[in-house]
């Protein structure tokens, strides 16, 4: 199965995209991932639109987390075998000439549990900027801007030097988002970012995601269908390593094409 000239597989193999091709910022084609003999993802071809929120849902173990981890080359760190293509702005990020470190600076990631570093709030957000040896002023400005975008600025502006671990779980997760935003990534991947948070903290993160799509492309993995319906413009359903459906969110939930999707969203399994 060979890709077309713009990196898209031939018609019929890609599910969607339900949006114009020029909106594509990130795209997988025939992405297959193995862990030893076991196939975790089987030929997933999926395109993500820029400045939109796309959700990936599916039952536990369906490969959602592996899929997002392939998008910034984190999957290979766990020793997984990856074949197929992932293109970011048209460029194959698995090209041997591409440095995975550079990929991860452009495609940021937020994890299931807050993973703040045991340093101050300021230093956490500054981490990525310091790697780029930015000047003091640039770092200062970046920290403030990122905290504002993550909706955390008003809560922490007085105590930037306090240890980040003293923040609440929800604040820590928003700090992690601010930290990922500080390096100005093109895409922000979120792997079940609210799974360890209470409903109020979840609400705040979801509000922030809604604001973020004005500037960023967000891809969010969630096991929570209501969350996908609330925050996502597009929703993909993954089942046993296969992409079942990728559709505009309202369409996805109101009139899914695949019987499997319908059974899943009506709670017949999962």
């Amino acid at each position, binding site marked *: 199965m060979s890709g077309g000239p713009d990196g898209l597989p031939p018609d019929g193999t890609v599910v969607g995209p339900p949006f114009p091709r020029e909106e594509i910022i990130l795209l997988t084609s025939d992405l297959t991932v193995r862990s030893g003999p076991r196939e975790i993802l089987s030929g997933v071809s999926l395109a993500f639109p820029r400045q939109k929120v796309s959700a990936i849902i599916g039952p536990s173990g369906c490969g959602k987390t592996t899929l997002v981890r392939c998008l*910034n080359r984190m999957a290979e760190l766990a020793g997984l075998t990856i074949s197929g293509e992932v293109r970011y702005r048209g460029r194959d990020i698995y090209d041997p000439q591409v440095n995975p470190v550079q990929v*991860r*600076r452009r495609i940021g990631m937020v994890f299931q549990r807050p993973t703040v*570093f045991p*340093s101050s709030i300021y230093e956490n957000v500054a981490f990525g900027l310091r790697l780029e040896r930015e000047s003091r002023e640039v770092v200062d400005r970046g920290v403030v801007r990122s905290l504002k975008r993550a909706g955390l600025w008003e809560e922490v502006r007085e105590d930037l030097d306090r240890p980040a671990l003293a923040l609440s779980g929800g604040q820590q997760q928003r700090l992690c988002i601010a930290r*990922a935003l500080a390096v100005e990534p093109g895409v922000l991947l979120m792997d079940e970012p609210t799974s360890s948070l209470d409903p109020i903290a979840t609400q705040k993160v979801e509000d922030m995601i809604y604001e973020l799509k004005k500037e960023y492309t967000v891809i969010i993995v969630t096991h929570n269908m209501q969350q996908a319906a609330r925050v996502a413009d597009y929703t993909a359903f993954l089942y046993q390593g296969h992409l079942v459906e990728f559709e505009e969110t309202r369409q996805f939930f109101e009139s899914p094409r695949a019987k499997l999707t319908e059974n899943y969203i009506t709670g017949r399994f999962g």
Partner: protein
Amino acid sequence: MEDQGTRPALGEEPPVVGSGNAPAPPGRVPPNPFSRRSILRALTSPVGWIPGIFLASIVVVLMLSSHFQNFGLGFFGPVWNPNPTDPSVATYGILYFVIGSALTAGFALVLAMLLSLAIAISLVVFLPSPASRILTSLTDLLAGIPSVVYGIWGYVILAPYFSKQLDPALSHYLGWLPGFAASPTEYAGGTGLLLAIFILTIMVVPLTTALLRESLRAIPREQVESGLALGATRWEVLRRVQLPWARRSIPSAVLLGFGRAVGETVAVFMVIGNEVKLPTSLFSGSSTMATLLVGQFDSAFEYPDLLHALVEVALLLLAISLVVNLLGLRYFGSGRMAHVGAGA
């Protein structure tokens, strides 16, 4: 039974809820003294005290056998002379032994810390996991080699090599540095401070490596992944995420490593040259508090004063090792707690 106040504490029998109008009195069922649990408890709880009893009795017995003999300030002076011909003018000054202990343990500790930091980083961060697992067990095995084996290896194999190759080379190239200028009259023929430091370093490395290695391993994987996901290289993650975490365990590694080094006896005794004087260079023969004890204990019962002096040296050694080990374990504990707290 929602009321918190009446909930039984852990391990207590829950009060029986009466079926009549009046609730049954919250009496506890008396424990059966012959239940398996009670017997096990009666057998094991005194055993738990044994380590404490041992330690206390060692301290007490040593103190009693020293007869609390007061050697005055001369005890910390330079002259150690039991004087067999006229014990009434014998002097017991342990200064040179203290210096020997401090020099060997101190230098060995510095070298061991540098070496084990490098080993721990390569084991945890850079080596693939099968190699890392094998090499981890090998470093741990080093700790199990009997002390006397290190000693004989040092004396039979290393000392001739030191005297023919290493010592002349070091004094030739580094002779301008203090401690590396060998004077021919002071030369201990391969044995001496340098060889003792070398052997001690190898003996301390397994312990300090294990402590640093485990503190690196205790870092939550998400921390490392977050660093990488922010576009840090493996090296940057090591420097900015992993080492700051591991830094907390360095004080405990230093203290526990020092405790191990300062108490090591037989191997050092076999390679240090056993001279009682102020060392003029790394090639001089020397003695430590521990080698003093093993070298002179056989004549201790001939002179009561010598026995008392040796026992007091033993007490001093015991005090040093107790203090550094207690402090080291405390630091180790607090370092671990910090990991747990941050992982939540």
